[in-house]
């Protein structure tokens, strides 16, 4: 039988975004793959060089449109280091609250899309339904459901509205038993196991060689989670387990993400308790006025002259829902960052696609790529 290249994408139900997976096949067997990216390249790193530090936050929400708050947190950690600003503790807890809720929302979105890919239709609705509860919470304190623009250099824009922590606890109380239902729906289904077990294998050594991180690496049994290994914000004060699985296959990645959502709920209970007990400022006192609109709340804005403001570099790494994300911000003393570099976890996970796709069948591509959880916004930036 002769070989041929086929294009899966840019418009294909498997891609979940705008990209093209070129596949070389012989019959049904995959011989080689070549992902074609760039359909969504907006030059976020370049645009950042032309904006005030606080204006870059707008771009962060659009970098990954299912985990905007995690990217805001990533950028803020690096930018604050470059600008020599330290946020108050309550703001750091609020950021962790954002990040963990965002992790659950992102994983629920993944769950909805992935399970639909392998032919189970109703879990899609359950996943989207439960994600909506979290979006409602986001809306109640950031004002938006998708593009939040909530964090600022020096803290967060506003504190939580009254009664928020109780509403959030209600959502968490509702979510926890749902994860059990999801497991019953999927792990109890023969279709799920037939389509997922033993597919897309990538051992831990291969993962590290090819830069693969996040749930894909943890599904191979490697316990690497930056929240635990290199705690940022206030993660060193929170109690949680790193989710791992063995198998290094699609089912393993499913198990890791499910366990991660449970652990996020566990973290969120602790964060909500802390927020109840510790009222305080959510914005640093001394802020450079030139950081960009919108300014700090009236009465809180410090005034530092731009002239002779110290230079600096900022470097941050967070465990984003998809894996290890990095930001590198160079402050050369101007109003705008001199250079901003982001490392997207999905970018590296996709770059390794040849190593977990070759040898499988064409019909295995949707479950395997679904288990990677591709977010094209952060790959192309």
């Amino acid at each position, binding site marked *: 039988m002769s070989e041929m290249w086929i294009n899966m994408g840019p418009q294909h139900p498997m891609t979940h975004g705008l990209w093209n997976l070129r596949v070389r096949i012989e019959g049904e067997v995959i011989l080689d793959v070549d992902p074609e*990216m*760039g359909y969504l*390249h907006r*030059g976020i*790193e*370049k*645009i950042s060089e*032309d904006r005030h530090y606080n204006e870059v936050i707008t771009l962060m929400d659009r970098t990954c449109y299912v985990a905007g708050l995690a990217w805001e947190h990533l950028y803020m950690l690096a930018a604050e*280091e470059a600008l020599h600003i330290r946020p108050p503790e309550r703001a750091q807890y609020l950021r962790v609250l954002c990040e963990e809720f965002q992790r659950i929302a992102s994983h629920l979105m993944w769950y909805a899309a992935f399970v639909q890919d392998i032919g189970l239709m109703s879990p899609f609705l359950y996943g989207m339904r439960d994600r909506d509860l979290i979006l409602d919470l986001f809306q109640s304190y950031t004002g938006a459901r998708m593009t939040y623009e909530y964090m600022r250099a020096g803290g967060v824009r506003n504190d939580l509205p009254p009664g928020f922590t109780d509403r959030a606890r209600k959502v968490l109380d509702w979510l926890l038993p749902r994860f059990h239902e999801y497991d019953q729906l999927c792990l109890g289904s023969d279709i799920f196991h037939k389509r997922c077990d033993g597919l897309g294998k990538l051992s831990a050594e291969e993962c*590290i*060689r*090819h*830069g*693969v*991180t996040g749930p894909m690496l943890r599904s191979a049994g*490697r316990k*690497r989670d930056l929240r635990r*290994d*290199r705690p940022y914000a206030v993660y060193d004060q929170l109690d949680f387990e790193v989710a791992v699985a063995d198998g290094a296959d699609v089912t393993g990645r499913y198990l890791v993400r499910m366990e991660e959502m449970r652990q996020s709920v566990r973290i969120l209970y602790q964060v909500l308790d802390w927020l109840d007990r510790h009222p305080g400022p959510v914005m640093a006192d001394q802020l450079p006025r*030139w950081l960009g609109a919108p300014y700090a709340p009236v009465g809180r804005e410090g005034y530092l002259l731009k002239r002779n403001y110290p230079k*600096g*570099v*900022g*470097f*941050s*790494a967070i465990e984003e829902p998809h894996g*290890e994300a*990095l930001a*590198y911000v*160079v402050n050369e003393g101007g*109003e705008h960052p*001199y*250079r901003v*570099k982001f*490392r997207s976890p999905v*970018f*590296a996970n*996709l*770059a*390794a696609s040849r190593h977990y796709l070759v040898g499988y069948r064409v019909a295995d591509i949707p479950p395997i790529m679904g288990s990677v959880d591709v977010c094209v916004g952060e790959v*192309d*930036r």
Partner: protein
Amino acid sequence: MQTDELERTLRPSLGDRITSVEAFPDTAGRVRFRREAALDVFRSVHALGFHHLSTVGGIDWVDHREVFYILWSDDTRQYVVLSTDVPASDAHVESATPVWPSANWHERETWELVDITFDHHPDLRHLLTPDGYAFHPLLRSFKLHEPEELEVKARHV
């Protein structure tokens, strides 16, 4: 691992192939090296346990360009930054793919956006920009606005 410990470990084997080892926030340090010795430095640092290459990127400092590599070690749970300067007129450096295969896409991206060529790269093609795209957007000479527009903006602020 502290910065001075990093220097003590690397200096005997690499000598003056590394120009300096300096403190860098939240990492083990930044190792600046001569670009001719790139592969030696990559191998030495890899042997220290930095098996995971997080990213490769470039900065345009107008008179020269900087290539940086960010690496992670599972043993010490730390990042380290490698960096080298290349002249803008002759911007090329040895590819890191023989040591870290994950450098592949990161170097493709750096090549097309910052115009730094990676020698002996297995597959140096456009990744995010279309084939044949002749610009390098992350260079400082690539302006997003016309100069007069920039002026208006500056006055407004």
